[in-house]
Every structure is written in C-alpha cells, then in structure tokens.
C-alpha cells in the first residue's frame, strides 16, 4: 500500500500563513504532496484542514509562504489558476450542476468543439470514455440529479481527470456514502493514484484513513504537528496528536448509563409503527422518564429521519404516538412543542440558529414561539432567562447581544440547547449536538445531557460517534438501511459489539428489548 519512496514532490507548500480577522487560520504550515500517493490531512475541526485546501485550490489568497507546483512557484488568484496548474478538487457537498447532464458535468469548459460550436456527440463520447476509465457505466445524457450522491462524487472525480489533473483534492467525499459506495470510491482512488496522480484526502473516519492512506499530515490549531507514513503511526497516537491533550476530560464523564431507569410507568413518548414511505420503515420507539435513548447507525441509516418523524418535522404516513399513555397526534413541530417535546437538528446552520439575531433573541425564540406573538417575553424576564442559561451552559463570549452567527459552532450549539431548555421540555431530541465542535464544548454538552437526564428529563441522543452514544445512553436503538434493526441496553456493550451489530445486523448474544 505504501507508494514508492522515490516519488518526486508535485506540490510543496512552505510556511503557509492565512490570517482571518482576529484569527490566524494557518500559521507557517509546511505541506508536501508526492505524485502517486494518497496523502490524508488530519485534524479536528478548526485545525486548519479546509483552509489549507482552500489555499491550495486558489479559493483563499495566502498571506505568507510559497506554493510550488512541479518545481514552479505559483500565485493563485482564483480556482481557475489552481486548475490551470493541474490541481482539481472534489468538495464535500458535490460542486456540480445537478440541472445538467452527467456528460456535461464531466466536460463543462472542455467540450469538444467544431467550427466554434459544441459537437455534442463527440463531447458525450469523450465523457463516456472518462467515466469508463474509472469503471463507471452511466448514461452520459441522463440528468445528474437522477443519480445518487455517491455517483455524483465519482462524476466529479471523472471531471477532475478531464482537466489532466496532477493533483486531486478530495475534501470529505465519504461523509454521506454508505460502505459499498466508499469501496467503489476507494477503488477509483487507487486507480487514479496508480496512474501517478497525487491525491490529497480529507476524512473524519479513522478506518478509512488507514485503509487508503500512504501518508498522513496532522494539523492542530492552524499549525503543523507533523507528517507520518500511515503504516508507522498507531491509531491511538494519531488521535492524541490531533487532539493534543489527553482524552481524560471526556473519559472522566462516568457512564451515566449505570443509573437504573424505571420502565414500569407509561413512557414519556411511545411511538408504534412510525414510518414514512421511502424514508423510514415503520419502527417502535419508547422513551421513559430520566432516560437517555441513543440512536446509533451510520449517516443515512434512518436515525435522523426517525427523530424528525417523532418531532413532526416531517409527517409520518403510518403509526401512532402516545405521550404518557395518552394518544397524541404529532404531525407538525407545533404539536410536539405543545407536548413539551423539543428537537435540535443536526444541521445547526440551516435548521437551528437564526444567524442575524442576537444570542438573547435566539434563546428566547423557543419560549416566545410557544407563547405566541401576542404575549411578548418582557425585557426583564428575557434578561434573567438569558443570563441564567449563558452562565449555566458556559456560552462564550457571554455577551447576549452578539449576533449568534459570530459564535463558534460549540457555542451556537449551547445557545440552541438553551433555547429548548428554556421551554422546559419533558423530552429533548438532540441530533448530532456535538458534531463539528471542539473537544471542550463537546464535554460541556455531554455533561449537560447527563445532568438533565439525572434530573428527570428524557433525552434522545443521536451521534455518529458511537463512544459518545454508549457513554450517555441507557438504551440504544440501532438503525440500518432506513430501518430499526434492534435495541440494546448499553451498559454491557462495547463499541466493537455495536459496530458489529450495525455491520452485520445481528449480535452474538442479542439483548433485544424490542
């Protein structure tokens, strides 16, 4: 798996510095990429991975340092400059045009022309050739929107190869792919690598790092930690290099699951056969007083979909729900809120914060919406509430008048948590509350969740990080392929077991409660 050591450096970045107002996003970072290798960039959120990629692809101008491509020093004034230098990029949210055909997306800007006009036949033939090179057999005239994200991802790579790319940058391409799609992507990546292209890869999934990488570069807080051959860096060491401090803080959170839950009383929320065609197969879920129920599964497994149906964010087309034993119709968020159920979406920016409103207004919004527009939360009441939650959750900076969009991700998440806690819910559904936030804020939020449950609030907790789910949850609902495949009481489950369950759909000695 290791590339031949004699490969020359195709990209050399030296002393790269990028300054944003108030922050040094990159500080004198060196980075070397060699032809025919898969080089993975590692680091926590905020480490500077995206910034480094954007410097390399010409999105951001650099404030200091040099970029040398194939021995020639370059200054990129835009993405076009970087592409001209042979650097092509495939972004996380596929940057293609879904309104156009597959073939066009591959060939845009490189169409075959005759007498000044595009020769579509030849263009599609050429597109098909590039797709076939990567083992893709797709109707080039079909609209891109009719294909899955995975296929679109591969089409984007094909496009990169049309431009005779010498360097291929893949920025978190796997975050929304399932296992077999990842396999397909990796096969293509290896193929491209073996043709001498240098691949810069970014991912959050550790397994994938070791599966595909030849070399790793680790960044932390905008600084270079070091470059390592993948085979020589053990997993645990990699994690501590990325995080920089020991995991003590998170481990110190004892497993709250040790507490016994009384499941004799009627559950706070009980859903039976809740489902929606094409979205989620009917599933049963119940949450009891003071209980944390984790939803575990991969992205797209149906865990978010189930949460949204429970909350009425999407409308279920089958099943029924009961709140404390009484039938309750929950088809809109309002219904859920009236039943004192709260929901924090995984997409903080698009479905959580109201960016141009202040921290205070964001906190009060939930309670205000509940009361209706006629009964405004008074100034004094608002100030008291806001101060209380800013202090209780440790929102930084503790300035209620700052616009929420200017806060870091972790603090935005705390504000959203405050918004819901202010409405005094009996059940709160948290979808990926710790995604993309720093370790300190993550620990704060986990601690808060455990504390709330201990005080009697019920919680549905969804996270991609299985450790986190196991640490907090009393019970884990396991999801796969848009359906619930089982339920585990978690105190005797290890991460490995859970992974196996998700992978195989069965456990050696299953403790199925359902």
């Amino acid at each position, binding site marked *: 798996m290791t590339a031949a050591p004699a490969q020359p450096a195709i990209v050399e970045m030296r002393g790269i510095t990028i300054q944003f107002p108030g922050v040094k996003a990159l500080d004198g970072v060196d980075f070397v990429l060699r032809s025919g290798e898969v080089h993975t960039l590692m680091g926590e959120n905020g480490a500077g991975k995206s910034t480094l990629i954007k410097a390399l692809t010409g*999105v951001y101008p650099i404030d200091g340092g040099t970029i040398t491509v194939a021995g020639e020093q370059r200054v990129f004034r835009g*993405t*076009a400059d970087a*592409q*001209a230098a042979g650097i092509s*990029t495939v*972004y996380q949210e596929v*940057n*293609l*045009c*879904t*309104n*156009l*055909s597959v073939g*066009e997306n591959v060939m*845009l*800007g490189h*169409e075959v*022309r005759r007498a*000044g*006009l*595009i020769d*579509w036949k030849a263009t599609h033939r050429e597109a098909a050739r590039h797709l076939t090179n990567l083992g893709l057999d797709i*109707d080039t*005239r*079909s*609209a891109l*929107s*009719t294909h899955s994200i995975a296929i679109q991802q591969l089409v984007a790579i094909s*496009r990169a190869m049309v*431009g005779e790319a010498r360097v291929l940058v893949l920025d978190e391409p796997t975050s929304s792919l399932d296992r077999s799609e990842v396999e397909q992507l990796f096969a293509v990546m290896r193929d491209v690598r073996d043709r001498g292209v240098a691949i810069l890869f970014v991912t959050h999934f550790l397994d994938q790092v070791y599966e595909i990488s030849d070399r790793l570069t680790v960044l932390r807080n905008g600084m270079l930690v070091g470059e390592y051959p993948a085979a020589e860096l053990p997993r645990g060491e990699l994690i501590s290099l990325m995080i920089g401090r020991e995991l003590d803080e998170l481990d110190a959170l004892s497993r709250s699951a040790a507490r016994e839950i009384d499941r004799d009383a009627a559950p706070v929320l009980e859903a039976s056969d809740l489902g929606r065609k094409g979205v989620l197969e009917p599933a049963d879920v119940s949450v009891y007083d003071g209980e944390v129920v984790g939803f575990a599964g991969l992205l797209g497994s149906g865990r978010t979909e189930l949460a949204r149906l429970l909350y009425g964010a999407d409308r279920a087309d089958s099943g029924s729900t009961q709140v404390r034993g009484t039938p309750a119709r929950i088809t809109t968020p309002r219904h859920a809120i009236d039943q004192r159920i709260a929901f924090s979406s995984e997409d903080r920016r698009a479905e959580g914060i109201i960016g141009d409103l202040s921290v205070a207004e964001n906190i009060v919004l939930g309670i205000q919406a509940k009361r209706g527009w006629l009964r405004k939360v008074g100034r004094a009441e608002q100030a008291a509430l806001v101060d209380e939650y800013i202090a209780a959750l440790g929102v930084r900076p503790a300035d209620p008048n700052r616009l929420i969009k200017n806060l870091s991700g972790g603090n935005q998440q705390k504000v959203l948590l405050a918004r819901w806690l202010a409405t005094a819910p009996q059940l709160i559904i948290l979808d990926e509350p710790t995604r993309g936030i720093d370790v300190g804020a993550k620990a704060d939020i986990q601690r808060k969740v455990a504390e709330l449950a201990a005080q009697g609030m019920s919680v549905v907790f969804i996270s991609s990080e299985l450790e986190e789910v196991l640490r907090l949850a009393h019970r884990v609902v396991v999801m796969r392929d848009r359906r619930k495949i089982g339920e585990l009481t978690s105190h005797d489950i290890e991460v490995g077991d859970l992974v196996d369950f998700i992978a195989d759909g069965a456990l050696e000695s299953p403790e199925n409660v359902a």
Partner: protein
Amino acid sequence: MTGIPVTVERASASGALRRFFSRRASWIPVLAALAILIVMFIGAQAYFGNFLTPRVISSLLLDNAYLLILAVGMTFVILTGGIDLSVGAVMAFTGMLGASLLRDGLPVGVVVPVMLLIGAAMGLAVGIMVQYFDVQPFIASLAAMFAARGLAFMVSLSSIRVEDPAILWLQSTRIQAAPGSWFITPTGILAILVVIVGALLLAYTRFGRTIYAIGGNEQSARLMGLPVVRTKLLAYVVSGVCAGLAGVVFTAYTGASYPLNGIGTELDTIAAVVIGGTLLTGGSGYVLGSMIGVLVYGSIKTVISFLGAEQSWTRITIGALLLLFVVVQRIIVARSSRR
C-alpha cells in the same frame, strides 16, 4: 426515476419514456406550453371559424416581434437566476434616441448601431451592479428601468415620428407568396433570427452552457473554473442588446417613438418566458419555450380582440395563465425533490 408523473405502464413504452424523462425532463414545461398553444388555436378556430388563417397567424409574429426579441434576451438573464426589469424602458429609450437622431439627419447605418450599443451599455451597467457590487438583480435592473424611462423623456416629452425609409421598410415590406396567404416582414425575420441565434448560443457554445451552469449552481460553476463573472455580465449585455433591437423593431412597428412605449412590457416579457417553461430560479429553460410563451401571449390578445372584449382581459388571462404554470412548475419541482 425523476419523479415526473409517468402513468404509462406499458412494458415496451415505459423504458423509452423513462429514458426520455431522465434525459429531457426540462422540456416538459415547454411541451405543456405548446399543448396550451395548440388547444387555444383549435379552440379559437372552432369558436370563430376564421382564426387559423395565414393572415391571423402571420400577424401574430408581426405584432409580437419586439416581444419575441425581448423574451430571448430575458431568457438569458433568467437562466442565470437573475431578472431584468429594464427591458421595456430601455426599448423605449433607444427608440426615442434613435428617432431623434434620425430626425436630426443621421444616417440609419449609424443610428441603429448606436441604439444597440446603448442597449448593451445599459445591460452592462446592470450586470456590473449585480456582479461587482452584489446588488440584487431586481434592484439593479429597477434602477436601470427608472434611468432609461427618465432618459426617454429627456429626449422628448412627446412622440417623434419616424420617416426614415429604411426603418419603415422593416415593417411595411411584406414578403408574401400571394395576397391573403402567409407573409413575413423583415421585423419578423429579425425576430426569428434572434431566436435562432439565441438558441444556438445557449445550446452549442461554452458561453451558453456556462449560463445554465451558473443558473444551476453558481458556486459550483465558480469552483469548476468556469468564467462566471464574464458570463453573467454578458447575459445582461445580451438582454440589453435585445432591448435595443426591440427598440428598432418597435419604432418600425408604430412608425413613431413615444417615451411611454413599453410600460409594463417587462412584465409581459417575464410572463411569456415563464409560461414558456423557464424556471425563475434559473438553470432550466429554452429560447424556443420563450417563443411559444410569446405566441401564447399574442394569441390571447388576438382572441380577445376577436371577441371584441375589453383588452383588460388580456392581462387578467395572462395573470391566470402565469399562475397556472407556476403552480404546475411548483408541483413538478416538489415531486422531483421528494425523490
């Protein structure tokens, strides 16, 4: 599956149909517009008995040549996800300017290029505001509309007759096989040429494809290394040039320029383009569709004058039709996104 309602379930046909829908879904609204046009033609013929005659259909093109030219330009802008409210006023301004220059004795060979250049300049100004100063297209073109309307009145407060033979020739010449049969005027030919050039530009040039790419996802287009800035500016310039040309054609049509010409024309143009199947969000639509939209608009006008009814019914009908199309588009989009 694209989520387009395919109800035909026959084994042999369904594969081909599915393929068609997966490849050509964006043509469906155009076909719907065409269907409406045909139904209108047939209905009008059945009701009046003398609707589908060469004379009526030929004058449909004659009477709406200026609108057709405007609609082609508007299609370019709407495809990028923008809008151009200035077209009616720019048409009026270039018409006024041209008429006054002709009155002052300038040769038509100078005046017409000047009119086109003025249109291009107005378009460029809108484009620069949109592209470089992040002004919303709605506001930028609104400013251009105000400016052009004011300038038109600055040229003259009253109408100016045009006596230049070359301009009048554009309208008065009828290329006709026999009396009472099909005919076409040079203005009509001009409009058709604009449609053809527009369609070719959009379908067969990188400029045209970049317009679709921008309308589909501007951010992507930029990251793909496509010349987004240049292309967007050019789209507004195309619309401006079309407005200038429409100024020439409209002047020929009325034989005079009046500063109040073309009030509300920008709305008619947008309505025609939308009825022709172009999505206002950009990235989907065809010049040919816009042409059908203009013909639908023209037919409604003709039908209403055949009925001898108030011309105010034209606007009401157009409004209702616009509503129908937008609702249908909305359903199509909702269905395909639910996929």
